[in-house]
């Protein structure tokens, strides 16, 4: 982005303190919305080249570089050109109040601004530097303006390549549709003078404040310099080997889309409150805004460090810290560790040479859009090479005429991994290009099976055309009508009121980017106010257009009637006795087979199935208690016999089933008693060694007490359930960051 130099001229005359046209805020506050927003945008970009300055017009005093002349009175430089920080912003804010005078010439202020910009952007050599120069004037058009020498002033503005924006409070604007009634002749005169000046400028804009403020809602899109990621030959065939029967074209490849990301926040912590009263204040307030660099305001940057630990049976806890220098580099192949030494690296790398080569062609209708793997790029012929441009054009036109796409392999730089691209021709009056998207490799496509949508296949393999999963003719017709009624291809309106496509890409903006930008600006400019709700242009596309839904309402009614969709009521926890008994495909009653030798004993090596089957249809509560007792015994037995962590995973699976069933059978106390007892035994070391780690790990996989949240009837509160893990008499409380 080019360096900027922007001068804002703010009319501070006494008349700016008045309220007009039904507004309850002063004209100054009203107009400043525009200026503050522009200043905030510059500041938020955090660019060294974002220079801005402010001149007050119709100020009580006079303070400007040209103040020797009478015509430059009542003009004060409030802030010279330069970067602005929040502290300076506060100072500036204090100066933006209406003065007690009406004197001061707007055109003179512009001349001062031109002078300042010219001086500021002049290089040491005296030549003008490369800057984007701009003057923005906010005024209510009430002062006296001397309209002599407009042409020469405009000439000067143009010579310096400055763009001039005049924003007038309640200025008439036919296009925007605003006209102030009972306008004073003075204001009428001033408006026409200023309008005339902007017309004389090459880059002049003249507008009314209401429009400028309304337009603030349209977001600025960060523009990025075109970036070329590949410059080389696009080949067809192998020109090295087949000199006369292969071809290549010199091309350049650019980004066409790039997923824009919101600004990212950095992490800070407040300095520990040692003695300074100021920093202790910040500790307590969450919403504090700090207006000085990190090191000066009690904020510390957070950095991350890495530690490495290896398994070591001798070390306490079985793990040992190790220095990074002691480690080699390598990979995992399945569960085997593979070390690749640096010298091997050269041999093992997949060697590639920079190239861009066409594999073949396909008709465009044989390509499915959803196979696209990412962002699009654009390839054009190298501009300095006329022969390449001609050759490239023939390829683009041939593809276009044949409705075909090219499939190509690209290696953007030596050693980079190859990619496969699909190239489509694009012919515009001012640009011929191939636009490409990345295609998947064999490994990138996962084959999952899904039943077809137009027929139902039964277990025996026959296909049904009528089924509750398939729409009947009524539903098909109703859907068709509804879809047609919600057509957006002509639901929008252009400037002339003609129907055009609704919601084009150009009209949609990344909600999160602009939401965050807006919030940063709000917080910086108005630190004490709550953050305003998302702008209308961000939420506009979250719902279908009102007039369309109104029009198609009766189609939707028909669709709803034909669809007969029912919402499944939310699952009630504690579905005691309502568990469906599963059957194999044949429908064989395995339960009956089981009942012949009804399982009453849970075996330690078939725990979960035995437990479930015992509770499939328990005769009475004693069966539940019995099953739970056996389960508890097995869990304790497994833990006691576990060498190290050997059995932990199995135990957790058992516990999970146990807890789940106790919730289902609405017997939380059985599980809770078991777990309390388990905790006691862990604490006493009754379970064959130190099992604290196992106990602590239960917390993270949701195997705590059954509390009220899990089951309404439980007498354990959420708080108790939480404290259960940390309170432990002599259990260590491992505080973890998460």
């Amino acid at each position, binding site marked *: 982005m080019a360096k900027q130099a922007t001068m804002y001229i703010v009319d501070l005359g006494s008349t700016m303190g008045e309220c007009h046209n039904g507004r309850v805020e002063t004209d100054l506050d009203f107009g400043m919305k525009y200026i503050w927003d522009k200043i905030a945008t510059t500041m938020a970009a955090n660019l060294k080249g974002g220079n801005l300055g402010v001149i007050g017009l119709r100020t009580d005093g006079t303070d400007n570089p040209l103040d020797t002349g009478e015509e430059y009175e009542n003009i004060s430089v409030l802030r010279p050109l330069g970067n602005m920080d929040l*502290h300076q912003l506060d100072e500036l804010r204090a100066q933006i109040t209406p003065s007690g005078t009406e004197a001061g010439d707007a055109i003179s202020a512009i001349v001062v601004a031109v002078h300042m910009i010219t001086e500021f952007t002049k290089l040491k050599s005296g030549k003008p530097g490369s800057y984007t120069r701009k003057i923005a004037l906010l005024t209510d058009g009430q002062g006296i303006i001397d309209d002599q020498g407009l042409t020469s002033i405009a000439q000067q503005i143009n010579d310096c390549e400055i763009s001039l924006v005049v924003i007038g409070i309640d200025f008439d604007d036919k296009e925007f549709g605003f006209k102030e009634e009972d306008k004073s002749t003075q204001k009428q005169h001033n408006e026409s003078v200023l309008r005339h000046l902007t017309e004389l400028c090459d880059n002049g804009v003249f507008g009314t404040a209401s429009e400028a403020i309304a337009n603030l809602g349209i977001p600025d899109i960060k523009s990025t310099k*075109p970036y070329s990621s590949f410059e080389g030959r696009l080949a067809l065939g*192998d020109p090295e*080997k*087949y000199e006369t029967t292969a071809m290549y074209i010199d091309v350049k490849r650019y980004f066409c889309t790039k997923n*824009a990301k919101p600004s990212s926040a950095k*992490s800070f912590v407040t300095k520990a409150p040692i003695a300074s009263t100021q920093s202790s204040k910040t500790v307590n307030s969450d*919403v504090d805004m*700090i207006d000085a660099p*990190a090191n000066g305001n009690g904020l*510390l940057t957070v950095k*991350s460090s890495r530690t490495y630990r290896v398994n070591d049976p001798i070390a306490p806890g079985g793990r040992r810290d190790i220095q990074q220098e002691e480690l080699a580099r*390598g990979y*995992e*192949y*399945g569960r*085997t560790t*593979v070390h690749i030494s640096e010298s091997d690296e050269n041999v*093992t790398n*997949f060697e590639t040479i920079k190239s861009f080569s066409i*594999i*073949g062609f396909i008709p465009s209708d044989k390509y*499915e859009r*959803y*196979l696209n*793997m*990412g962002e699009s790029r654009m390839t054009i012929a190298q501009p*300095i090479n006329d022969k390449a*441009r001609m050759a490239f054009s023939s390829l683009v036109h*041939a593809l276009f*005429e044949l409705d075909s796409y090219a499939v190509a392999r690209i290696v953007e730089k030596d050693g980079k*991994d*190859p990619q*496969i691209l699909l190239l489509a021709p694009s012919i515009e009056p001012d640009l011929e290009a191939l636009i490409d*998207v990345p295609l998947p490799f064999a*490994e990138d496509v*996962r*084959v999952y099976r*899904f039943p077809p949508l137009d027929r139902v296949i*039964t*277990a025996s393999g026959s296909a049904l055309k009528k089924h*509750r999963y398939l*729409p009947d003719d009524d*539903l*098909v017709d109703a859907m068709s009508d509804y879809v047609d009624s919600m*057509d957006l291809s002509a639901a929008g309106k252009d400037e002339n009121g003609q129907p055009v*496509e609704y919601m084009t*890409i150009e009209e949609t*903006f990344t909600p999160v980017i602009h*939401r965050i930008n807006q919030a940063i600006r709000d917080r910086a400019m108005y630190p004490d106010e709550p953050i305003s709700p998302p702008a209308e242009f961000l939420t506009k596309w*979250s719902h*279908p257009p009102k007039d369309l839904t109104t029009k198609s309402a009766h189609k939707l009614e028909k669709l709803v009637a034909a*669809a007969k*969709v029912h919402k*499944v009521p939310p*699952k009630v926890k504690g579905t005691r006795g309502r568990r469906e008994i599963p059957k*194999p495909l044949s429908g064989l009653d395995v339960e009956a*087979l089981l009942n012949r030798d009804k399982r009453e004993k849970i075996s330690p090596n078939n725990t979960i199935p035995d437990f479930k089957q015992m509770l499939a249809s328990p005769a009475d509560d004693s069966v539940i208690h019995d099953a739970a007792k056996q389960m508890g015994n097995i869990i304790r037995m497994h833990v006691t016999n576990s060498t190290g962590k050997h059995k932990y995973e*199995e135990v957790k*699976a058992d516990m999970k089933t146990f807890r789940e069933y106790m919730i289902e059978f609405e017997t939380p106390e059985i599980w809770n008693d078991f777990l309390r007892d388990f905790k006691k035994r862990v604490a006493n070391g009754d379970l064959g060694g130190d099992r604290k780690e196992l106990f602590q790990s239960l917390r993270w996989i949701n195997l705590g007490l059954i509390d009220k949240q899990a089951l309404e009837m439980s007498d354990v509160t959420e708080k108790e359930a939480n404290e259960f893990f940390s309170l432990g008499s002599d259990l260590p409380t491992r505080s973890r960051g998460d």
Partner: protein
Amino acid sequence: MADSKDSWRRDEEEEEEEELDETSYIAQKDAVLFAIDVSETMLASPPPSDDKKAEKDCPTAAAIKCAYQIMQQRIISNPKDMMGVLLFGTEQTKFQDEDENSRGGLQYPHCYLLSDLNIPAAEDVKTLRGVVQQDEEYIDLFVPSKEPVSMSNMLFCANQIFTTKAPNFGSRRLFIITDKDDPHASDKNARSQAAVRAKDLYDLGVVIELFPISHPNHEFDRSKFYDDIIYRDPAAGEDLASAPSNFKSSGNEGISLLNSLISDINSKQVAKRALFSNLPFEIGPDFKISVKGYNLLQKQEKARKGHVYLNGETKQYVEAETAQYAEDLARTVEKVEIKKAFQFGGSQVLFTPEELKELKKFGPPVLRIIGFKPQSMLPFWAAIKKSTFIYPSEEDYVGSTRVFSALWQKLVKDKKMGVAWYIARSNATPTLVAILPSEERADDTTKVPIIPAGLWLYQLPFADDKRELGPQQTPLVAPDALTDEMRKVVQQLQLPKAIYDPSKYPNPSLQWHYKILQALALDEELPEQPEDKTVPRFRQINKRAGEYINKWGQILDKEFREYQKEHYGGMDGTMLKRDRDDSEDPPKKKIKTAHSGKTLDGMSASELKNVVGTKGLSKYTVQEIKDFLVAKGMDAKGKKADLVDRVEQWIEEN
């Protein structure tokens, strides 16, 4: 069970969406155990034949080969998942050796655990390869037992393997490959026992997949035995079964048993992992159905290079643990202390993490139709990210499937697309998507489905995502004769079946990487030459289109000479200089305008030559000349005179 457990977890964690991602990932880890039948008929070699395509493998061998290939594949695609291979019906018997006394031994006679259920190691790959190659030490494995193997025993053996090795895996499956449709024809008791053990597996959460093999003289009949041991979970919507698999020992229409097994197992070996479940799909105001989302496209990347500890008893892969500390005293910092700040005019603007979270919130998860457009309104360049596949789910709204089907049919029929506002998860940022229908597509030869019927959420770029190229020269449109010849070239070089078939293009870099890792892991010779199927077939191209390309080249030369003559009045570049010197219209003026408007890089060849011809290059700044040289990949160091020389040289050469 796995499913009900998952939803139970989900209910509890609804509020802590961020954690859910991780936990559900853990819960969805997948373990697959292959159970391969070894018997006289499974070992019978196919009849000898001169036909090259005739079946060569006996079914058992084909199955083991298949397991071998799939194991290698899974190491790449699902590095955290487990796999094991169990043979049953063998004369030999082997179980997990570590607790031979307590559990193993002869408890499961004629079951041979070839490779225990685990994340595969290099040794497991080696073992399977040994078996595939029929190495000496494995020959004895292919001796079938004299007495029939008890299926209930085999199933219980599998039960033990899953219980001990993968107790907390969200997805656990037993793949049975056999040709015996009625293993206990005459023993009713043994049948019942097997049915009971199968129910145990079901209760344990293990799903059985059957891969039945028919012989020319015997069609496999599932109803005889296997329908009693296989369950379908109605909650998972699996009652909408696809056609059951069936394989022929003699191969099928020229496709070997191995290949059909691989492609079928492949389509089932990946546990279906839903990206999200029961997302409300709002087709109209107050009219919702529910859908699940799946990642059918996923860029497979090489695993990250990590740290390895070599000084221990065995090599260890070491994961780094990160801690955060404050810059001044290097004290570690707890997560709750951290505040987030944005840079603003050289200062920080602070937000609490809660505020930041709130800012990113745009409402609960939803897929809401805004309206419909013809698919042709989706510009080709509007691509930003891979798409997500969605499929209806009856769990929240009964009737979702038929409504979804009706919508799908309409979109397919009229080539329309939906456009929708989409928030995938709570706290996910909203995007706009096009909803595109896909029609079923199966492999022509194996008949295995590749693309399922359903809808795809195709993310649309926002205006912020579009990059502009800036103004360019007016295109130099090729003369018709040249385009006509190029058309012939394009027509000659259509890809097979006129489609891009991803399965034909394995990622060469990825394959090579894992081949090297495998060789290093097994301490073997490194492979010599990487295989790269993405390299164009130059010989074919030459054969089919060489002649046309040559002709196109000639036309290009001719047309280009004419173009030059027309524009510069010369015959070629060498004559240009002299001609220009005599030119009536002094190009000086042009240069001035060129300089103020255009950078060297943005100029056409003719403009550049003009610049050189009038010594105009020296009027450019060093920086501008440097930019040009860098863009052309040339050395940009040295004095201005040297740089100018280099540019002139380049222009002459090009």
